[in-house]
């Protein structure tokens, strides 16, 4: 019996890949982390509709001294895609990105302040 298993294992060959040495892509349509098209986002609405639907609160609005910024935390994003449908301007999309390892927490956060929104 052990020989049967051994034979089966050998016949299967090597299936593991060379990742990460050889990069791999996920299939089209696979949902990776959300990304923000900065030129589209105007951070409108209180709160904006994307923030309302985001269950893990990966999207939030930061307000300091008249500055209004949209904050997207990729560590919290569960890639559900709900914000993509919620944004009226098509500013959010789902990427194919899954390599989210980062050397600091800050690198997992994108912040966006729309142009002309700076406090006087």
């Amino acid at each position, binding site marked *: 019996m052990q020989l049967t298993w051994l034979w089966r294992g050998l016949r299967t060959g090597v299936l593991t890949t060379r990742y990460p040495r050889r990069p791999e892509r996920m*299939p089209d349509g696979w*949902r990776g982390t959300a990304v923000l098209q900065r030129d589209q986002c105007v951070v409108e609405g209180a709160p904006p509709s994307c923030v309302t639907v985001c269950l893990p609160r990966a999207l939030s609005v930061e307000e300091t001294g008249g500055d209004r910024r949209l904050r997207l935390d990729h560590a919290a994003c569960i890639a559900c895609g709900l914000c993509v449908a919620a944004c009226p301007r098509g500013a959010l999309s789902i990427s194919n990105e899954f390599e989210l390892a980062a050397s600091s927490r800050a690198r997992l956060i994108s912040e966006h302040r729309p142009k002309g929104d700076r406090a006087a």
Partner: protein
Amino acid sequence: MLHPDADPARVRGHSRGGGATSFSRIEPLAGAIPVSATAELELEGLAIAEWPDRVRRQTHRESVMFADLFGTADPDGGVSLTLLLSLPDGGRWLALRDRIEAESTYPSLVAGGFPAAEWYEREMLGSLGIHPVGHPHPESLLRGAALASADMARFAPLPAGGHVVDFPLGPVRSGIVESGHYGIRTVGEEIVDLRLQLGFKHRGVEQMLAAVAWPLAPRVAERISGTDGVAHSMAAAGALERLLGVDVPLRARQLRSLFGELERLYNHAGYQADLCGATGLAVAQAQFDILKEQILRLAARIAGHRYLFGTIVVGGVADDLDDAALNDVRDTVRPVRDAFEALIDLVATSSSHQDRLQTTGRLTLEEATRYAVVGPVARASGLAVDARRDHPYAAYDALRPTLHVVDGGDAAARSQVRLEEGLASADLVLDLVEELRESAPLPALPSPASRTLPGDTVGFGWAEGARGTELHWVETDRAGAIGRYRVRSASFACWQAFARCVPGDNILTDFPIIEQSFGLSFAGSDR
């Protein structure tokens, strides 16, 4: 519908051991909460003390299975208790309901002939503070309060020395094992008792589900336990659809069954891989893992998510599958099915593997019935229950899946049931692909998402996941907001029996095999 026997004025207390005990029931009897839609669920207001008799009367007519027992804290301070029973012969559910004062007492159903209620009552004791009078171990089940032992009385502290050894195991363990803690007590090689501490993965999912906008409930539900994501989101969607009175189109129901069976298939393959890992059959472990991975990659291609999250929405499915996707499903699942079949024969004749499984962790039919276990664990102990057959949902009324029931009750029987069911799931997927080619395209129905839920109503949904039946119960308040969301997971129903079948005839090295042969989820149970 109120049962004619339900006269709230008649029963005020419950008598035990000669002395009358008054239980603080409050009026009115909450049986009037209407159930939306279907004849599948009957809700009946009845004083708790009468429940055992009421069930006994029902048992004379048809088979009755305990399904759930839970409390709902009412805004005015009372607690509504609901006992949910499955009546598989007629494909119906029966819910008995009564209302008591918060922090008060009620007659324990364990004492009234429902041994399966033991953990459910202990859970309510911890979360709602209501006290079951006559319960054998009235201690909270919640983490930090008390532990869930096979027999709490036996697990008393023992004097130091002697031959008794306590092995603590978990909650942090090697690999990707979930957090749960076992206290294993041995004398020599033999395990004489086991206690199980649950709750490390408690995230308050029921509260979250009650708080989110209801169309998002399936998105939260699928995260109760990742490998049961489709089953949980299907049960959540079913509960909300019944609440709203929404009909799901045939093609969407077929797609739901397809996703459900793909989930069962990768789970069964993963289960066998882990079980082979536990017995040291390394090549078999790798072979089953390869099959699991092939299905997960298929899921990523057709649904955008390896664990099929996001596929089920209230009212139907998120996306249809086109012909190319259906071909992909067929071309992937067919070779997986054939490989699975070949592995079944190899595993069955691997004596080193079978020796470890046979007579290990035996759960008798009597115990399985007593603790109302579900899923493959029940079917491996000879208990023929399966929500796909007993309470058809999705496309199962037409599919009629075969039940795989064996008698052994040991790890070998559980493994055998899961092997046969894996093959059966692959066959169902292939059948569904052909049916989907024929079925009419998904109609463009308006999404129910903009509607408000009806007030003071109950919606109830279920689905048979790889570990058994997942139950989701939704109650709305007067304004139509979700007032109570209850999840009874298959794992919760089975852990109780697990704690009982380990001590006795098993030795310490059997433990990982018994644990793996049950294949339960901590996250699903802890919620």
